[in-house]
């Protein structure tokens, strides 16, 4: 059972193990289900134009597309959805359809069609991660695929122009993000305390949007206002992906003290965060207490409301 399975995917940047949504979905699911994957990035190789990423190689067979790869892993007993009820399994399918239909067009637009983002972020990144002479072709091909997908699925006859479709797809995407936020509520993951395939799909879609330094990102701004989704993304990165980056650091400089140093640093950061939360809560309480001049509380309601919004829940 311990044959190494090899996954081909795009490389990582901006604190993420991969910048490509589908690759992130597979990586996250592998972490959740405990599958050991040997991750090979296709950067700087001819595979950037020949392979359809992500691709799983195992014992001679090749599987592409996230849903197929997840099915394959499940058949191999790497199942993160084991504890879901039938209804939750049905909900998973429904929410994945929602993501694909409403969020993906807007993500494709943000990264590949929006002129500023494409010119300043996406194209340079993909060009620098492709070998010569493919770096001239790879980003352009992806961009045209993204544009045609958006136009064919979302543009109906009076909306043949991409600018008119933009408004529609962004409003649908914002609605979709709001719906996800409502569904997640205050929980760590979508179905209780353990992550499942739905968490992998949501993570794969929203992580690039949160972490990428987009020059013009109205969707990113909207997402940053949804605290629980950002928290969700950071939790997964912290719990499932930082050990990977810590291992990488260990590989480059073989000193065993780095691992406990990182762990200590994490604990310290958490303590400092908790302290600052406590201090802010105390500050809030002091401000709203009756001893603290009440007329000031009435004359500056907006300022206090602004401060309340800033304090984390």
């Amino acid at each position, binding site marked *: 059972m311990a044959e190494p399975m090899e996954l081909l995917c795009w490389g990582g940047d901006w604190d993420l193990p991969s910048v490509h949504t589908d690759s992130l979905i597979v990586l996250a699911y592998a972490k959740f289900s405990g599958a050991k994957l040997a991750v090979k990035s296709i950067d700087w190789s001819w595979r950037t134009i020949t392979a359809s990423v992500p691709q799983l190689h195992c014992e001679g067979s090749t599987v592409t597309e996230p849903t197929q790869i997840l099915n394959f892993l499940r058949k191999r007993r790497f199942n993160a959805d084991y504890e879901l009820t039938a209804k939750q399994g*049905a909900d998973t399918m429904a929410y994945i359809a929602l993501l*694909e239909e409403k969020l993906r067009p807007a993500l494709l637009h943000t990264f590949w069609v929006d002129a500023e983002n494409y010119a300043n972020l996406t194209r340079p990144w993909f060009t620098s991660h492709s070998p010569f002479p493919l770096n001239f072709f790879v980003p352009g091909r992806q961009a045209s695929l993204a544009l045609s997908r958006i136009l*064919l*699925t979302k543009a109906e006859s*009076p909306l043949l122009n991409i600018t008119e479709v933009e408004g529609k797809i962004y*409003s649908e995407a914002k609605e979709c993000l709001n719906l996800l936020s409502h569904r997640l509520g205050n929980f760590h993951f979508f179905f209780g305390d353990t992550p499942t395939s739905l968490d992998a799909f949501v993570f794969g879609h929203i992580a690039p949007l949160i972490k990428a330094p987009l020059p013009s990102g109205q969707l990113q701004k909207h997402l940053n206002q949804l605290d629980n989704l950002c928290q969700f993304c950071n939790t997964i990165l912290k719990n499932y992906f930082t050990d990977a980056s810590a291992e990488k650091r260990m590989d480059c400089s073989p000193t065993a003290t780095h691992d406990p140093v990182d762990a200590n640093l994490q604990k310290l950061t958490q303590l400092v965060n908790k302290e600052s939360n406590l201090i802010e809560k105390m500050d809030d309480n002091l401000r709203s207490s009756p001893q603290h001049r009440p007329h000031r509380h009435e004359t500056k309601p907006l300022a206090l409301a602004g401060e309340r919004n800033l304090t984390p829940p």
Partner: protein
Amino acid sequence: MSLAAEAFVSQIAAAEPWPENATLYQPLKEAQILLSDSASSLAVQTFLRMCGLPVLVSCRANAEYMSPSGKVPFIHVGNQVVSELGPIVQFAKAKGHSLSDGLDDVQRAEMKAYMELVNNMLLTAELYIQWCDDYTATEISRPRYSSPYSWPLNHILAYQKQWEVRRKMNAIGWSGKSLEQVYEDVSQCCQALSQRLGTQPYFFNKQPTELDALVFGHLFTILTTQLSNDELAEKVKSYTNLLSFCHRIEQTYFKEHDRESQSGSSRHSKGSLP
């Protein structure tokens, strides 16, 4: 329509009550309409009946071209024309008729998610079977789609539509799928719907919502339409609670009206549900 125009239209819509002469347009029932269009049209009709809004069904050969978005069905209410279930639901809501008011935010999120599931899987599968499967396209879809037109227009329009649908399938990655895989996807979608429905009368317990209308539209059409083989209908029939769900909605919303109006509801079908 741009967002500002949509908001403006819904303001105007809110001003008037639902008129008596609202009309729903769809392609010709006997000769022209295809599975996917019939399903969408039935979904809209079911939704309007659930809201208690009267609508006359009018069959036109050029319904697709009259529609503002190019998709059928569309309704003509007062001096406004609205097409597709999503905008029609919003339009009805602007006029004060809504089925999903009693749902809280999480339930509404679930309802939207399930509606997307049906659109994503069932509707796309129907389109695939109609236009990307060569046998069905040649024997059924192309002849039916172009039946009102004479040569050479019928060939041109049929092939144009087929090419358009195949391009869309290519863009979303369905062109690599085989027919078996598509049937498997339909089966999984039905399984998800069946598990969500459970033993409840409707998807959100006591009251029907637009999700019930959409699911009924698609499932009923699949069950009662004759295609080249019955495999699609068999997939749906294997889920008994979905079958009884369809029966229940047919009994509640269609049988009494049919008895009252005595309109010959002859469909391109094997009759009512088995």
